[in-house]
Every structure is written in structure tokens, then in C-alpha cells.
């Protein structure tokens, strides 16, 4: 898992508002990963960053999941690559 070859990956928590990203991987324990998967946030899925002040929760959206607010701690654990 540490061997992700992509070099433009970064945690969701630092991505600017308005960008679209693709989820690469979710770090963390069972409960959280399961919950994110359940609402459709799993590797390969694209999401748009609606609101991110950089130090608080992040609001994201896509067609499958709708709009969600992710706590800062969660956003840090979602590793993404910027698509546009």
C-alpha cells in the first residue's frame, strides 16, 4: 500500500475549493473506511470540493453520493489525486 507510484497524491484536506479529485486510497481503521465506502466514497471515485477552509471540515459532492461534510480528521485520511 505504501508503494503508490503516483507523485501528485495529497490528502483531501489540503485540496482547494472548486477542484475535482479522484480518491486514491483511504487510510485508517475499519469503521471509518466502511462508512466512507457505504456512502460511495471509495478508491477510483471522483468528487468535487465544495467548501474547504483548510483547517475545518470539508464539504464534497458527486452524483453518486450527493453532498457530504467530512470532518477534518476524515479529510486528512482520504488520499486523492487532483483531476482538474
Amino acid at each position, binding site marked *: 500500500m505504501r508503494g503508490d507510484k503516483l507523485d501528485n497524491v495529497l490528502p483531501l484536506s489540503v485540496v482547494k475549493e472548486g477542484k475535482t479529485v479522484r480518491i486514491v486510497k483511504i487510510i485508517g481503521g475499519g469503521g471509518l473506511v466502511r462508512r466512507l465506502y457505504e456512502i460511495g466514497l471509495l478508491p477510483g471515485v471522483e468528487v468535487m470540493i465544495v*467548501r474547504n477552509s483548510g483547517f475545518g471540515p470539508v464539504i464534497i459532492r458527486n452524483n453518486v453520493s450527493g453532498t457530504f461534510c467530512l470532518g477534518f480528521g476524515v479529510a486528512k485520511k482520504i488520499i486523492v489525486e487532483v483531476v482538474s
Partner: protein
Amino acid sequence: MSCHESRAGSTLKARQKAIKIGIIGNPNVGKSVLFNKLTKGKAWVGNWPGVTVEKKVGKLTLDGISFELVDLPGIYGLTAYSQDELIARKFLLEGKPEIVIQVTNAINLERNLYLTIQLLEMGFKLVIALNMADLAEKEGVKIDVDGLRRELRTPIIPTIAVKNFGLNQLIETIKEQLDKPAPFFKIDYGPEIEEAIEKIRRLIDSPIRRLGLKIDPRWLAIRLLEDDNDIVQRLRDMGFEDIVSEARHIRDELQAQLNESVEVLIIEKRYEYLLNLSRKYVRRKTAEKSLTDLTDGLDKVLTHPILGLMVFVSILYLLFKFSFDVASSLTEVIRVTFSQHIHDLVKNSLHPEFISSLFVDGVLNGVGTILIFIPNLLFLFIGISTLEDTGYMARVAFLSDRLMNRLGLSGRAMIPLLIGFGCNVPAVMSTRVLGSDRERRLSVFMIPFMSCSARLPIFLLLTLAFFRENQLIVILSMYFLGVFIAVLTALLFNNLFYRKQVAGYVMDMPPYLNPSIRNILAKSWERIRSFLMKAGTIILLMSVVIWVLSVTGPEGYIGPEALRDVELLSRSWIASFSRFLEPLFKPLNWDWRIIASLSFGFIAKEVVVSSLAVLYNVGVESLPTVLSDSLTPLAAYSLMTFALLYTPCMATVATMRNEVGLRYTLLMVLYQLLIAYTAAYLILSIGGMVI
């Protein structure tokens, strides 16, 4: 499927008993609205996640068949991650509903289908209400309902619950489904996982058959592969320890073979399946008049770190202004009508004096106290319900996240705290949506310091007597003091017990919706009704009990004159009990009558004012004058502080016990008494030095 035999033969039998139907769905899909429409308005709804914290039951009768509808908490899946999911699953496993209605949001159907798959895997007879069909159309979402219906072998009915659209068809479909068998549904998880599922299924199949359990063995096998703690525990409790460990062994082997987490793989397979469904049956084109655009526009301001906070504070101010100012004239009307006209009427028409006194001084005083509350509560509830139904509450959670993080809580904990200003009981209950036990306990500890509407009459009365000029400021100072102590409490307990950061959380942000006035009124009325039933009966009862304890004493019956004669009253039971406590409150300089009223306040804070009225033998309207003769303003302020902070009412304590257990509840009750006493004493002594 093996867990649900065909009901064709059992329909007659079923008709004699109510047929159980579970209503389930993601948060914010209009599930509670649908439930209310079907049951003709017995439960209330909200537009922020998790309003349905406890399952609500309603009745529906059709052509002589009676149905029992159970409204379940809004959840995303059945993995038992939060308390809500556990409640929902417990009902599905133990309540054995005959049919499950899944309410789905047509705008983001895919996310909803994840739950659908899990329900079908469990072997339920499902009816899907494709709700918000109109909004989906506006968003440019087109769903091939027939195709999806065929593929899932499950009836799907487009509905717009708020407009009653599709509800008749939904009901018809439910009736049709009664006699049909559950559909066969199976996801292919790929050869390796399927092999493991089959191995575990064979292990549990015959023991389950032997016990006559109506659980699908394949579903159980999948749950075991996903390492579902709740299921593991259940099987252990049934004495299947060997099966559990064997299943674990199979799982570990599979994990080693695939070199990845089995549960993640299983969820991925489900998504693969449903994204495939989505590709086939859901079309999206650019929306013409998008709700998302409107929501985004509003959110630019409302979730802005500075502007949003300013709007939030203004809304909060307006909410309280609205509920207190608008209500005050109504309150006045009730007060005057009650304390003068009805009072005199009853007094003059009832004989003998004993009976007349019981009614006037006991019952009527109690009823008056309850009625005086109604306008304030009604407007507060209307305000809160409106905020909930527009979807604004989720933004409040977003905005307060950073602030709450400092207390070791997530933004979502703000909602129970705000509800606490209305009533602590629903506030404590609504902490269930919070992820971790730690977060739930912390917010439950904070809630009692949120000054609920029952404490307001105490403040109103005392400020009327002592701070007539600065009434609003003094009352606001009470609210702020409460919040301040709540914050200190959270910091203290978090550092003492947990020293931990906030656990991750995920929260649905519903689009802004135009709230339906009918819904808001229905919901507010429901809340008022539950206040009347719960608090009202206690207040009434206590008013009578106080009356009895005042007209009788250790020497026996004293007579209603005791209420007019302090000399006589001091021989009553109430006086002896309070005198017994008097030394304890010596530092606070309290009269035994105040102690007596506050002790009754433990039963319900609402009765503090009415018992003061009874004990000083005046109507509530002239109580301020009487009190200003016997207390100093400083003592009054210290008394208000004590009333604000001491043990919440019995109903809150009972709810706390349910939510966090007896140990923490007792700890909290003692802690609050200590805090209240200390604060009251400090105000009295420090204030005394300053003045």
C-alpha cells in the same frame, strides 16, 4: 428464500394481527414525511441527519387489514457502525417485519441502493419508494424505473411524499406484496469470496434450521466474513463459539490468499454491482433549474467562516426574540384569564372549603403554570422546526465544527446542545447520532447546563421581582453562564477521562428546501403535546401533592387555612422536611419555602414557580411582590444561578440513564449539585463584598 416462506397461506392468520412494516432509508430522503402521511401524522420529522433517533410506530388500516408501521433511524448501511444502525438492525433481526419499505432519494439513487442491496441480501420483501421524484427531474436525473424493477425483482414506486404523490400506489403495492414470496437476490462476489461464503454457510445452515431461526444463512455467512461484531456476539450468545472461530479461520485464510481486507473487497463488489445498475438505468443531463445551484449559492454565505457565523448568531438571536417577544402578550392573556376569572369562578362555585381549596390552590395553580408555558414553547418549537426543515441545521454543524473540536466534540454535537435550550429530554436523546461513546457522553454532560424552557419561568419571575429594568440582560446572563459552565464541563471531563481528539465523522448535507408550514406546525404541535403529556401531568400531580403536604403535617390535618396562614403552614410536612435541610443551605440564607420549592423542582423545574406560589400563598401574578419583600436582589441572582445549574428534572435524569447508564448519570447529578451550590455561594459572597 429460506428465511421467508411464502405467505400465501398465512394471509388470513396475518390479518387477525397487525402486519408489521418497517420504513427505512438514508438520512434526508423524506422518510419521516412519508411515515407521517401514511399514518396520518403521528411522528415528527426533520431535515437534519438523525431526527428519528428512536423508532416510531404508527397504525394504518386498509380494507380491514391493519398494519403497524415502524419508522427506523436514517442510516446508510447495516454494518452497525453507529447506535442508529444498531437500532435499525436490531429491529430488522428481532422485530421481523413482514415487508420493508425503503424510502430512497431519486437524486442520488446509487448511494441509496447500497442499503437496498443489503436489505435484499437479508432476504426481506422490499418495496422501494423512489422519493423526491420531482426534484430529481429538475436536477436532470432520469431513472429507468421499469428496468431497475426487473433487475432487482422489487417493486419501485416513484413518490413525492410532501405532495402525496404516489402514496396510494405505494399502499396498493404493499397489499399486493403480502401474498408474494421474497425475491431471490444474490450478488456474485467472485470465486474466492464465494467459496468462503459457501464454506461458512454450510457450517451454520443446520444449526440455524434446528433453532428455527428465520435468518438467511448466506447473509449470516457474508456478515461473518465482514467480521460484524454484533453478529459475532449474537452467535456467541447462542453458544456457537466454535462456528465463530471456524468462520474467523476461513476469513483469515481468505485474507492471506487475497492479500487485502475482505470487508473492503466485499463492499467494493457491491459498489461494482450498483454502479453497473446505475450505468444501465440512471441517466443524468445538465439540470435546467438546479436545486444544487441554489444550495451552493446560499452556502457561499451560510457556510462562510465569517459571514456564516454572523448569520448564525443573528438567526439564534431572532429565534429567541421571536419565541419570547411574540409569545409574551399571549402569555399575559393566559395569565390574566386564569389567575382572575377562572380562579374566582371555581372558588365561588365549589363547596365545602376543603374541595374548593384542593381545586383552586392545587389543581388550578398547576394547570395555570402549564398553560403559561405554552406560548413560549410553541414559538420556540416553530422556530427550531423551521430551521430543521430548511436544512440549515446541517450548516450549523459545519460552522461549529472547529469550535466544538476544541471541546473534543464534532460540529454535529451543536445540534443536541441547541435543542437543549428548548428541552433537555429530546436533546439527550438526539445525541445518539454522534459516532463515539465518548462524544455522546460529553455532550450529554453538557446538555443539562443549557437553560431549557422550563427554567425560564423561574428567571422571568425573579427578574420581574428584582431586575425589572434590566430583565433581558439578566436573563441572557443566565443563558451565558449555563453555556460557560457547559464548556468548562466538557473541557474538564474530556481531559479527565479521555484526553482524545475527535473521531472522524461524515455528515449528509441536504439541499436547502422550502419547508412545508403544515409539517412545521405538525411537528411543533407534536413536541408541545409530548411536553403536555410528560411535564404537564407531572406538574399537575406535583401541585396537588404540594397542596396535600401543605394542608397536612406531623400532627395530622391542618386544613386549607394553612395556605393563607404562614403560622399554620409552618406546622406542615413541607415545612418539617425543608427545615431538616435548612442547615445545609444556611450559607445561602434560604428560607425553608425556597428549599421546598427547589426540591420539588427536581421532579420538574416547571413546578418551582408554582410551588413558590402555593407556599407563599399567592397567585403566580403577585409572587414577584411577595418575593421582593423577603429576598435581596443579590440573593435572588444567586437563587437563579442555583436554579439554572442544579440537577435537571426527573425526566432528563431518566433519559440520561437510558443513554449513558446509571453510573455516569449519578456522577452527573452529584456534579451538578456541587457546581450549583458552589456557584450560588460564590455569587452571594463575592457579590456581597463588591456591593
